[in-house]
């Protein structure tokens, strides 16, 4: 279960603290999904990064299955992200020097078992699930935008995370590709029984997930 309690965030600026989030709370059970919407600069991505243990909150707590990543030391926090969280960003952020398969395997490198045959097989399965079985050995430069984002989705799911966080996953895609990626997201979320939290401007995408939140004036509105 994801539990966000009274999270606030303010950035230090030369002109003093700049509040972004104010007393945000929410919770999602395994298998649930939600979309966070709001205008640019409203703090959607910041909230997502706080939940994904990438950005510390100024106050409040975040727990996933009872574990507060911000209470963990840096190395365990990294392991927390690696094992429990999957990220998909607006830019696919694939490593250009690696093939699609290798990009999917990237998180596995720092797992205790490393890149095993089993995980390699799982990566191939995921690529097959996102429709890229034939493009496994292609490099990002040889893939379309939609294909890259699907590789990114497969990478996010390689560790079978309990929480899948997507930051504008279809923001850079055409309508068809966006629809395709959205289909995949929802489909895989259901199959894998994860918690899915999507930050998006896309109403179409937001409509396909269970809950919809709006960030307005630094507060989360259901």
């Amino acid at each position, binding site marked *: 279960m994801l539990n966000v309690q009274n999270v606030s965030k303010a950035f230090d600026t030369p002109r003093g603290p700049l509040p972004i989030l104010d007393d945000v709370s929410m919770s999602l059970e395994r298998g649930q999904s939600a979309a966070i919407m709001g205008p*640019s*600069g409203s703090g959607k*991505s910041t909230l997502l*990064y706080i939940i*994904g243990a*990438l*950005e510390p909150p100024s106050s409040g707590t975040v727990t996933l299955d009872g574990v507060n990543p911000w209470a963990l030391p*840096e*190395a365990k926090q*990294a*392991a*927390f*992200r*690696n*094992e429990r*969280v999957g*990220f998909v*960003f*607006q*830019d696919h*952020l694939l*490593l*250009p*020097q*690696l093939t699609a398969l*290798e990009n999917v*395997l*990237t*998180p*596995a*490198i*720092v*797992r*205790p*078992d*490393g*890149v095993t045959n089993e995980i390699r097989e799982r990566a191939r399965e995921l690529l097959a699930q996102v429709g890229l079985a034939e493009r496994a050995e292609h490099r990002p*430069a040889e893939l379309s935008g939609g294909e890259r984002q699907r590789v990114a989705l497969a*990478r*996010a799911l390689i*560790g079978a995370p309990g929480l899948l966080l997507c*930051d*504008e996953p279809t*923001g*850079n895609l055409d309508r068809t590709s966006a629809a395709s990626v959205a289909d995949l997201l929802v489909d895989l979320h259901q199959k894998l029984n994860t918690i899915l939290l999507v930050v998006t401007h896309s109403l179409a995408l937001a409509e396909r997930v269970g809950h919809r939140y709006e960030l307005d004036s630094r507060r989360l509105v259901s």
Partner: protein
Amino acid sequence: MTIGALVRRSLRHHARTNAAVVAGVACAVAVLAGALLVGGSVRGSLRALVDQRLGRADVVITAQTFFRDALADDIRKTAPDLVDAAAPAIAANAVVTHESSRRRASKVVVYGIDDRFFALHDVNRSAPEGRDILLSPGLAAELGVADDDALIVRVERPSDIPLESLHGRRDEGGRSLRTRAAGVLPAEDLGEFAPSPSQGPVRAVFMNLARLQSDLGIDGRVNLVLFRRTPGAAGPLLTALEASARPEDLGLKTSVLGGVALIESEAGLLTEEVATHVNDIAAEAGATAMPVMAYLANEMRVGDRATPYSLIASLDPATLPEGSLREGLRAPAHPYPPIVLNEWAARDLGAKPGDRLRMEFYRWLDEGRLGIESAEFVVSAVVPIAGLAADRDLAPDYPGISDSTDLSDWDPPFPIDLGRVRQVDEDYWDAYRTTPKAFIPLEHGQRFWGSRYGSLTSIRVAPAAGEDPGDVLASLQAGLMLRLDLQAAGLQLIDVRQQGEDAAQGAADFGQYFLGFSFFLLISALLLAALFFRLGIEQRMREIGLLQALGFPARTIRRLFLAEGLTLAVAGSLAGAALAVGYAAFVLYGLRTWWSGAVNTTALSLHVSPTPLVTGVLAGIITAAIVIILSLRGLRGLSTRTVLGGVGSAAPAAARTASRRTVTLAIVSATGATALVAAGFARVLPDAAAFFPAGMLLLIAALAAFRLSLNAGRGPALSGGGSGALSRLGVRNAAWRPGRSVLSAALVASAVFMIVSVDAFRKGGDDALEPDGGAGGFAIIGESALPMVHDLNSVDGREAAGLFGADDALEGARFYPLRLRPGDDASCLNLYKPRRPRVVGVTEAFVEANRFNFASSSAKSDAERANPWRMLMRPQADGAIPAIADATSLQYVLHAGVGDELIIDEDSARPIRLRIVGAIAHTVLQGEILIGEPAFLQLFPDQQGFRMLLADLPRAPDAEAMMERIRIATAALEEGLVDAGLDVESTNDRLAVYNRVENTYLSTFQTLGALGLLLGTVGLATVLARNVLERRRELALLRAVGYAQSQVSRLVLSEHLMLLVAGIVAGVLAAAVAILPALIDRGMPGGWTLPAWLAVIFAAGAIATILAGRFALGRPLVGELRSE
């Protein structure tokens, strides 16, 4: 908006990246122009030193023997337009001992000067008076002399009579003068006066000319005249010298004696050349020349009766008037030559015609001792003591004999047994003095007593009937001066100013040296500039793509960037010119301080001239332009879409072409390296020409192979976990930008190559005592200020030389004396170009000892191959003198090789053609050219005795005991031969001096290589920082997917440490090939320097990498994930 405006804006916008390119180019130009400036500065400094040490003297006359001091004024009067001032002086070798401290300095030059010396140099001082002497600053410091200190100056005593002849005064080779130090003569007051260019400290003392002349017994004579040319006047002084010189200036004595003109020599013997000219002149004048060879016989014996110590005259009967003397000398020479006795001798010996007579006489033997030889004669006539037979002037003046009142007062320079002198002998002396007691035919006298100095003691020229002998003498004097080559006869006229300026060009071009030393620094700087430029272009890939998308033709885009690049090249080159001055100043500071061991002087200063700077700037612009053009070529083959994506990865076809080129480069370089190594092993090429270039080619091949390994499959597959998997991912990252990765590795590799390969050439403790070692197995080497003539291998010879009580110290020692014509040091210790190098004459015994290791030779027969020294005794078909020299000196100082002809003494009347027949490898004889003794005596008849020696000492059980043995022998020799001013040192010490020079050069090379390494680490760090900054989003993603900060750091570091390691491995491998001969000869270097250097290189690279990684990863990465 124009193209120009676009270029300007771009330059401004990318100022930071451009500054890095400018800095790289500036470094390269600074190194290049700086090296040229160093060369110019060394030459300028040497020239300045020549000017300082010559003062205002432009031309000198110098001679081995002494001539009239009035010759100076005579020449000045003869050529008033040419000569502004003249100063006669004496220059003599000396040993100076500080009386109270007993400190001793040899190889000191004593100058006898008067006020004219200072007047010539426009120095407002007076010459020292009485026993006062002035010291050069270097000598005063060396001896620790204070004013009024007493100094014993032992001066080489001039002797007209050769030491290596019967009448040579071997016991009076030097004269000790007790003097008072009257102060130090500063360098600006000519305290460092030296007619020959040298950069080392000057050891000189200056004393009153008249006093020195009086002390040496040569009143009115000098052996040096300085001339100052009239400003603006040009023209040779030789004509004036020829017009002013007289026979006595050449050591000839001319007089009229009893109706004949008499020609004799101060040396006691007339040279062949003089004798020939006298005979010719006499013949042309219709006069009759009568040659005479007189000698002293120790004994004449007939049966059991003997006459001691008799003068014998040998005469040519054809030149004698009719009479019994002529007839007696014409008697048949069988079975023995005839001898004519005067009545006194016949009576004393009880001899009559037909009796056999045995004569004993001394003869100077080549090994350095007097030997007693004998000859048998048949008495052919007895003549009365009348006429020519009563002529006591047939014998020349013998010091110690001719002037003695009694026979028992004789003080000749050879042993005589006065106990054998009887009253009748005294009576004869009283009555007839030096009147010969016997006469033999000239041809036999010359055969018995002739030597390399001549075979006549006098020539009498009788005028034709009715002629005045005075007129004959005058025509002989004039004719001789006309016909004799004054310079060949010993009066050397030397344009010291010109000679100094020529020599200041240097034995080696330091500009080239330092360009060579700085080569890798230069390469590193250029690579760095190329790297920065390439990074700049890669940074602007999207911009290039945009321009392409906007319809800019590819050529226009290339021109745009070329214009930017050239602007940067010009800016960098101009900045480099300014930096070059600093770089040159830095190198010269190093040469004066840390590396002064390489140049043997601290007198080098910066001389800035425009030529090297302009050359450096132009070369910098051209080279940088080429580098930039090559970088821009990388843009070809990139599709607009690729470029717009900012990826900068070549299209597959272009990548394949590049890959093929890399393969070709690797194969060609590796093949070339293999061929060169093979040529090196086959001795087709010298080691330096084979292995070092082979190493460089291998370096290129290794880097090409590295590039290919990065291309091939783009690195290892991702598998496993932990550090190994992270490292593999790092390697994959390095393969993503192969160009910059290879450039980074190349920067490191070239520095490693240079530092490692140079270190292997560092000279260490060679086992000098092995016969083929650097000392040829000789334990000690010595050089004397005054000539030594005695055979130190015999007990008698040692005692005669003054070595008493040294038998224990020298037990088992074997000496090899060497003849020496002093001159310019031909070793790397001398920065000046040796115009008149030191020449050593090696004896037969030395040749047969067959020491030292030959680097190469032109031996033709098996015997010569077995002992290449024998080539010195084989005359060359073309008349050149066979010579052997040290390989290092030949290569770097004399610039000649085996088989080459080397002309020395080019400034003299008789340049000497040497043919280099062998090169000995790295020896204690680096300062000299070696020729055979016979050739030496022929070329340098004036050089008397031996001035160098090498000696074997019995081997001690261990090195320490050997050192002690050498120390004891050295002390005994220096003490015993103090009068000769013998300086002895262990050959190991001498080798260490030469090693120090080479090692210092290597240190210089390594230091500049370390600067190259610095640039390499800067490049590596830059690439790392750049890579990280470019890939912050990727790294942020890794953080997002669960990589810990430490894992991201490890990933980044492993990638760049791999480049560092690749560079080190490539550099070490290439260096191993370059130093293969050294490795084979000496094995793996056992010292600490090489591992230390490798550790330093790795540490420097690693630290740079870590610091750059920390800098680049220091800021939070999360922000990079945002798309806004």
